């Protein structure tokens, strides 16, 4: 029983100090991928058309009925009445 008293006192003191210790703050961590990280998005080369692909795209987009060149429609023969 005499032994238990210092043990209990020590335990109480230990609990007291532990609860008084400052709690660790939650720190906002921003993770920036390193230049060599594999998580970085791969640089896409397919999005940028090659010069040849650009020519091909232009040929495919070409229109013989270009709206900018289409003639306006109007009456070629007005039927103006006689007086």
């Amino acid at each position, binding site marked *: 029983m005499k032994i238990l008293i210092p043990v209990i006192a020590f335990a109480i003191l230990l609990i007291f100090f532990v609860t008084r210790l400052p709690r660790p703050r939650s720190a906002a961590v921003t993770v920036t991928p390193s230049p060599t990280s594999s998580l970085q998005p791969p640089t896409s080369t397919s999005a940028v058309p090659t*010069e*040849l692909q650009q*020519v*091909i795209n*232009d*040929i*495919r987009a*070409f229109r*013989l009925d*270009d*709206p*900018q*060149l*289409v*003639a*306006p*429609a*109007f*009456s*070629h*023969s*007005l*039927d*103006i*009445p*006689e*007086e």
Partner: protein
Amino acid sequence: MLPTLFALNAAYRLAFDNWGLARNQYLQYKTEATRQAAISATRQLLPARNVLWKTYLQDLRAQLASDTNIANYSQTTAYLNLETEINFLDNQDSEFSGITSLAQAKQLSKAWESRLGKSEPLSITARTQILSHRLDQFASRLQPFIDSASPSSTLDLVKQKLGTSTPDLKKRHQLLLDVASLMLQLP
């Protein structure tokens, strides 16, 4: 159609609808008031048609100059002929504003329409030259890739198609589309 031309087209449509209404009322009632209304509506319509066509030719002339740089004889001729037509149409504006009778309007309108018989083929020529030049440009842009390609049967086919000479714009465009597909198959 360019924005200015689009607006002029809308103005012409409105003038045409108003003219049709005034014309029908005159034919129906034959009164002095309806006659004057018909003259007034015709005086609005003829310049609207004139400016619409003139602006179209001006746009074509500008497009011909910017696209082709008027690099050969036929392009120069088309450009100068467009210039002549535009000048003619410029002078028509004052004629139309002085219309005082339906008979006079009819005469001026007929003369204008008769001139259109020459003006319209000219516009088709200019348009064809612009489109033809654009197709030539595509072929020129492809040439460096053809020159640097390794010999193959596909390359021979590309050269054969590009070497085909035809005045038909539709066929020329189709040949270029074929070449474009073949170019992607080159080794």
